């Protein structure tokens, strides 16, 4: 069996660990197995590039962050647009898939990667997807690999911010990654004891946030730490379309709401307010123990699906079990935080303000 592996979209901790598990499973259990790595995600498949990967290439990858194959973002919308020569990127990928003689292609990526994987599957390629994202927003799986490492990183960062905030009696806003889904912000915020957590799924009222900050100071709290998702929106912006919102923010000279919110809180509460953006450190570093275990389980299960000949699916976590979903069922869908979910309610019940 000839297997191809590619990693697409943003990187995260655990990618190498998953590839390792796939490779080791294949070499241990599939006869006459040959594995090729496709560099830079779908870009490599479009160009028809690949390099053989022997068993030794998968050793030593378990605790290494990032991806040895490299990754790029190749937007889904460009896949069916004809390019020079008339062929679309999808057609070129399909032709290269056949040219490489692949029996199976593993695509490690997020929601966009899964959409393209579903397209490839619809065109007759044998594809198995694996859910990779720090945002944990892939539909149909309880958790994605890379998420918990990012939560650990963000939690530690917010903990560090708290000590300096407490020393100065400041309110500090920490911007956490999460444009559409607020899982990372929610988990890191609860883990780090943030006084306010603002999510993209729950448009927040600036007055309520200021009121919560003021109340905390009156109770004697030395500081306020506010975890803000990069996709968080004001309730006054909720009615705008995405482009309108981007325009309004550009007028203010910013792309997210964090800086503006810090300014308003400082003005209204009279307290020193600062903000910081965690940025790409959330993607980097070595995977946590949890992610190493999860990645190994997911990769092993994916290898098993390939051995069984079950394609057109993506591996998923359901409760304590590793299972799979059909690609067309999850392609294009996101898993967002439910505003009335138990985790959100329990955070509010212990006094965390969610801006509503």
């Amino acid at each position, binding site marked *: 069996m000839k297997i191809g592996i590619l990693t697409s979209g943003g990187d995260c901790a655990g990618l190498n660990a998953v590839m390792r598990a796939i490779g080791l499973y294949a070499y241990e259990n599939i006869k006459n197995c040959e594995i090729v790595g496709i560099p830079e995600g779908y870009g490599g498949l479009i160009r028809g590039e690949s390099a053989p990967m022997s068993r030794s290439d998968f050793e030593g990858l378990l605790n290494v962050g990032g991806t040895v194959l490299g990754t790029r973002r190749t937007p889904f919308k460009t*896949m*069916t647009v*004809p390019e020079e020569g008339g062929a*679309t990127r*999808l*057609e070129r990928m399909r032709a290269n898939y056949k040219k490489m003689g692949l029996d199976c292609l593993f695509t490690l990526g997020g929601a966009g990667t899964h*959409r393209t994987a*579903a*397209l490839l*599957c*619809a*065109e*007759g390629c044998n594809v198995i997807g694996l859910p990779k994202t720090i945002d944990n927003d892939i539909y149909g799986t309880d958790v994605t690999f890379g998420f918990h490492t990012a939560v650990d990183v963000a939690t530690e960062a917010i903990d560090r911010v708290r000590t300096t905030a407490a020393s100065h009696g400041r309110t500090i806003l920490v911007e956490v990654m999460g444009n559409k889904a607020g899982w990372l912000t929610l988990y890191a915020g609860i883990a780090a004891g943030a006084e306010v957590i603002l999510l993209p799924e729950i448009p927040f009222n600036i007055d309520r946030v200021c009121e919560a900050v003021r109340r905390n100071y009156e109770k004697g709290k030395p500081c306020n730490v506010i975890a803000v998702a990069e996709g968080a929106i004001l309730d006054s912006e909720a009615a705008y379309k995405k482009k309108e919102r981007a325009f309004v923010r550009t007028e203010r000279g910013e792309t997210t709401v964090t800086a503006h919110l810090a300014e308003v809180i400082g003005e209204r509460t009279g307290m020193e307010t600062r903000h910081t953006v965690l940025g790409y450190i959330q993607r980097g570093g070595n995977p946590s123990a949890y992610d190493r275990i999860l990645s190994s389980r997911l990769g092993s299960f994916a290898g098993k699906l390939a051995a069984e000949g079950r394609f*057109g*699916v993506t591996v998923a976590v*359901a409760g304590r079990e590793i*299972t*799979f*979903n*059909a690609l*067309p*069922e999850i*392609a*294009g869908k996101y898993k967002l935080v439910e505003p009335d979910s138990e985790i959100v309610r329990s955070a509010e019940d212990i006094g965390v303000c969610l801006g509503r």
Partner: protein
Amino acid sequence: MKYCIIDISSSGISLIVAEHDGSEINVSFRDRASLTLVHYMDGRRLTSRGVEKLVAAVRVMKEKGRKLGADELYLISTAALRTMENFEDVGKEVLLKTGVPVNFISGETEAYCDYVANTGYSVYPNTALLDVGGASMEVCALDGGERHYFDFGVIQLHDKFVDRIQPEEKEAKRIKKFLERRFDKAELPEEGEVSTMITVGANANALYDLYAEMFGAESSGVRAMKYKKFKKLAKTLICGQERSRLILDAAPEKLYSVGIAALVTKTLAKRFGAKDIIVSDHGVKEGYLRLILSGELIGAGYRYADEEEAFFFDPVTEDASDVREETAEEPVPSEAGVPAEEAQEAAEESAPKRHRGRPRKERSEEELAAENAPKRHRGRPRKERTEEELAAENAPKRHRGRPRKERTEEELAAENAPKRHRGRPRKERTEEELAAENAPKHHRGRPRKEE
């Protein structure tokens, strides 16, 4: 009365909620979710993962029906589950985990449901109804004319002619030839004999979604597809560059079937010379509900009220110190002419009976009444009910959909009189003995209803 009908097909699960006011059925809500069971098959058996997904989908739809105030729910499935080797086990699992029984309906019944749901279109002249299903197809004239049933559907055509997921051009040509042969053999109407073509079913709805995605919906509000544009859509679905993206955006659950469904529809529309193809809003669910309400079909339904008002009977707690001592019963004076021993036996037999082996302490009438009153589940608050509501609730119920003939008072009395087990010979008894035997008995574990 509000009804919820859920239909499991090979590519999705759909729901309607409809109100029946005694004469009309008004559909107030529709919903659909993708569920591609084909991905969860092992050969012709649905895997445990597939069953999990199916159960989860049924639960979601059941809950939607409950939130919309449905009183009764019917779950139906046609070829999707019927063609699976383990469909009975799958049905049992669904019943066990959701409480809702699955009604498996045959291809013919499905086609009849479609027909019943769409008789309103017979106002159009020379109307033909087409239902392209997973395992069967039907073409029938809505004016009560001929009905043609084909024992193959999209699934069989896919298995026979298509190598991968979507048909290629050569495969499409072979499918077209096959269809034309079968339609000729069935002597389907030809050009000029049909003026209006109506399509129903999930595949028809998916085709309309794709048509609307490509060309925009018709401004008249009627879901009609112009034949010329439909031809372009069919061609795109077979050899267009955008076909996969189009399907995944508009109808992802129909990835395996919509191309073939388009071929079938186009072949028939060409044969009939139809200029417009109307996609009906009404399908098997509406037809099934009509047939259930009229009594033509009997289905296993689920009542939402049964779930909310479960009764629990408290176990009787026994205290050893309260065990009543068995006292010897006084001999019963014998009647004239009846031996004393026989009289004694008869008296013993007619005395109120107790469950053997477990002694019961004496209870006052108030305690007995309190014990036997209907109980409510602890922790679940119940709204106050008036006496009329309670009486209405406890009145004997009849299965809806099954017409009952009028009965006279004598027949009712005879039906409701205490019955005896056939086959066990009983000796003649006096009226006193019968009355004593029929006096209220105490049986553990069974709640007593108000008299």
